């Protein structure tokens, strides 16, 4: 019985192996042929632009607050029309765990995940991406989305100029 089992087991296994010779290989020669991941794939993060070509990000810090490993940092600044933007914006990809929580938190769809998985650098400091590295000339996943068409920029007149308003406080001064 055991001998018969051994013969059958060996022959059946050989049959499977022979069949595999005629199968298409399951592997791809990587650097020459690149796999295209699913559109939902979470890899390199980009900052996108609105349909008119302006930066979408309003430096609201929601993404950096959502990030579980605190790898996003930025400095907010304000344009002449009261529109906020990020003076600098930095993502440290050597810390990022590609969870996608930042992209889910962003109200303006500025920060988005892309399927570009080739994120290797010889020097870890090169993995710290600045705003220039992150900005792309495109709207990304929802090209027509325009936050400022929904929310509007500030108000027509400067802050504190209205008849019932007080001028804004200087937050860096100790004086009352």
């Amino acid at each position, binding site marked *: 019985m*055991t001998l018969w*089992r*051994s013969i*059958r*087991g*060996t022959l*059946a*296994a050989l*049959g*499977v*192996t022979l069949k*595999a010779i005629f199968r298409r290989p*399951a592997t791809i020669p990587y650097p020459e042929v690149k796999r295209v*991941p*699913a559109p*939902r*794939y*979470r890899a390199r993060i980009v900052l996108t632009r609105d349909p008119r070509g302006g930066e979408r990000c309003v430096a609201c810090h929601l993404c950096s607050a*959502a990030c*579980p490993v605190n790898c996003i940092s930025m400095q907010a600044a304000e344009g002449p029309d009261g529109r906020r933007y990020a003076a600098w914006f930095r993502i440290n990809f050597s810390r990022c*765990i*590609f*969870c*996608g*929580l930042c992209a889910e938190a962003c109200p303006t769809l500025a920060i988005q*995940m892309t399927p570009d998985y080739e994120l290797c650098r010889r020097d870890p400091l090169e993995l710290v991406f600045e705003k220039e590295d992150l900005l792309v000339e495109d709207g990304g996943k929802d090209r027509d989305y325009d936050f400022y068409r929904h929310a509007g920029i500030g108000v027509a007149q400067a802050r504190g100029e209205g008849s019932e308003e007080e001028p804004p406080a200087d937050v860096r001064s100790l004086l009352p």
Partner: protein
Amino acid sequence: MSPELQQVGREEFVLNMGPHHPATHGVLRFVLHTDGEIMRRAVPEVGYLHRGLEKLAEAHTYAAYVPFTDRINYLESMFCNQVWSMAVERLLGLQVPRRAEYLRVIACELNRIANHCIALGSIAMDVGAYTPFVYLLREREAINDLLEALCGNRLTYHYVRIGGVAHDVDEGWQGKVRAYLDHLEPILDELHSLVGGNEILVRRLGGVAVICASDAVGWGLVGPNLRASGVDWDLRRDRPYSVYPELSFEVPVGRGEQGQVGDCYDRWTVRVAEMRQSVRLLRQALERLPAGDILAKVPRSIKPPAGEVYQPVEGARGELGLYLVSDGSPKPSRAKWRSSSFAALSIVEHLSRGLMIADLVALIASLDPIAPEVDR
């Protein structure tokens, strides 16, 4: 044996296996006290992959900890996601939409098949058969592709969220899963003909390192390891959660086909049978997938009332539990993971007495421990 040789033979030799050893499945060390080829005892040394994931939970909000649960066990991230979400949902008293529950079942069962592919492949590889490992990796790759299209990542899914799931299925995805299941079932038969009758594999696994039912229960083994010892226990059926009561499936137990109940070969066959049951569950879940929401109304800042909860699920390696204490603040006050690999490792010292060194490798592989889950 001459008296002098008998004297020599009584000496003990201490041998280190690991921390970097292909058969220890991660960074894990075994200190083997041997007498020739025979083991006196093998002591597992754990802690090399300790990342403080339980302590990290105390520093993060409930929602921000979900991506960390992916890293508890990279082969069954979906279950870790799910157990965390279910525990928080129970603290919050949240009802999960039915579509989300079904999507969780689909994602989890796919994850279970992928995990068993690795488990079976590494059992075969550790006892000297390399080919099944490569074949099974090929099958797992297809599941990775499916899960990537669903969740956006191949290993750290971050898919099951508190209150539901992150993404709905795309057009055509269910068809792809069905096509894959049709492709997988003959592959499982092929796997059986490739290795199930192989004399070397059968002799390396059959009757080796037998765990009797009372030992299995006593050492806290769970999942396939427990069922291989003939204990009919599955949380999906015996402590029903999610929508499992609506689906029909069987719980395979070890029958001692090539030796005794509870040997390494049973731990192999139980896993193959579980993959078939997962295919069955997946077909039913895809069939019944209801329409509706995928995420419940979750408060923006999750602050569960003070309290504590223990939530187990039947993961790919068996009961994966989370004990979670909330003090009413946005961050948990304590999280404790009950991991199945840790329990599986604890029985190794007890079983190793009198085993051959080569059989220890088969024992470790058949218990399917994963080092990051042991240390967390």
